[in-house]
């Protein structure tokens, strides 16, 4: 459903991404592994329309280009990003954040039932629906961020290091939730530094180094690659 070709992004003279190509098929979970500064966040931000790509890039959803579309239109096309740092509306309650998540036209229909589903999926949010999100713990905030993105009824969910800053236990909980979403048919593109949890979730893996895709394969391919084992699995 998502096709990216020839994607390059530069901040001034610094080239953050170079000729990146990747695909996400409907219903699949694709993981992009990369160290700090490899360009993972830039890649997701470029797909979501937050940073402009160099001319010549092609980013398409179901064959239709979203390259150069403003970020709010891309959400309407069914791509939702859980951004780095979560970027919640901190002065608003959980419910207000989730309702804003359904601001997109595509999300208006079925908003009520979807909200109920989110509060069931993330039970802790149900208990704290009136709490201001800036007063919540990191793990709870990450749940709000994911639930807010899902409220837009996305065809593809982009996740930028969702486990960052979470305790190992909360990280595991989070990945269990993502696994449930994936088994419900949600297409997911996830970037992570933490390889062991994300590899278990992945149908396909890309490895990003210094702004380029250097390797791709099934999770088993990656696990069995000795040089990658050292860099990303800490083995």
């Amino acid at each position, binding site marked *: 459903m998502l096709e990216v070709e020839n994607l390059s992004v530069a901040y001034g003279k610094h080239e953050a991404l170079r000729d990146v190509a990747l695909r996400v098929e409907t219903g699949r979970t694709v993981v992009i592994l990369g160290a700090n500064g490899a360009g993972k966040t830039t890649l997701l931000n470029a797909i979501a329309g937050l940073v402009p790509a160099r001319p010549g890039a092609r980013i398409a959803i179901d064959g239709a280009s979203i390259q150069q579309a403003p970020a709010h*239109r891309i959400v309407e096309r069914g791509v939702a990003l859980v951004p780095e740092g979560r970027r919640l*509306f901190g002065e608003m309650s959980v419910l207000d954040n989730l*309702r804003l998540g359904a601001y997109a036209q*595509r999300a208006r229909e079925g908003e009520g039932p979807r909200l109920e589903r989110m509060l069931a999926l993330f039970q802790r949010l149900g208990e704290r629906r009136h709490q201001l999100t800036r007063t919540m713990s990191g793990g709870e905030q990450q749940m709000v961020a994911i639930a807010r993105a899902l409220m837009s009824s996305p065809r593809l969910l982009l996740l930028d290091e969702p486990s960052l800053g979470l305790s190992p236990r909360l990280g595991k909980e989070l990945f269990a939730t993502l696994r449930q979403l994936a088994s419900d048919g949600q297409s997911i593109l996830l970037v992570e530094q933490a390889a062991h949890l994300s590899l278990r979730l992945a149908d396909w893996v890309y490895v990003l180094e210094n702004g380029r895709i250097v390797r791709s394969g099934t999770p088993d391919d990656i696990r069995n690659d000795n040089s990658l084992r050292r860099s990303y699995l800490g083995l």
Partner: protein
Amino acid sequence: MVLFEAVLSGILVGGMYGLIALGLNLQYGIARMMNLAYGEALMGGAFTAFWFFTLWRIDPLASMLFSVPVAFVGNWLIYRYLLTPLVRRAANQDVLEADTILVTFGLLFVFQGVALVQWGGEYRGYTYLAVPLNVLGATVALNRVLAFAAAVALALALYWLLRSTRLGGAMRAIAIDPVAAQLVAIDVPRLSALAFATGGAIMAVAGTLVSMFLSFNASIGIVYTLKALIVVIMGGVGRMLGCLMAGLLLGVAEALGAYLVDPGLTLAINFALFLLVLLVRPQGLFSRG
């Protein structure tokens, strides 16, 4: 009793201050533009009401059918064609802030200059609903009560709009984080322009209301820009109810100062309060944390 009358007249003017602070909050808090020409829409609204009334005996309230749409469209054009290009060009937020302040500072003199050439510098006013009214034993003019009621009603309507509608929620989201707002499909440039234009339209309403009971001239705009700025700082950027309360507070402080000390002190009291808030509670009187 005279003291009570002073407080009462302060409250009546204070409602107006609250309203113009809300409008500035729309422009500065949501559209993120410090507009020093903000008060010029008030001056325009006041002159429109004056000329419509003196030339054609048209009711000031009816004159808003003309002045409010003009202010809305004019502010929209300013935002879209004068200020948005600065956003694209600016290297960072600080440069943008400096650029917008300089541009709108210049704009203020353009509007003021045109008004001076057209209508001269003398103070104008007209008599409208100057009927004495008894409020809890104090005597006030009906036009002041009407202006207060209209200002507070509009301010509360605006507050409700921002609190309880989808559109208002989107505007508050932009005020908190414009990037996150885009990620939930909010068209940030369009709604920012709408907020900016609405802020200008509110000033035309305020100008009409002010003209009913205070005299004004071509250079009055900047005075109200400053008052709105002071009230927003007192109430807290983005705090709608805080601004309403701060507006009432400023009105009462001005009236008490004028009554107890000297009417010439009004502006001095404005800035004394401003400095006090900046020194003691820079985040605003009604902000948490």
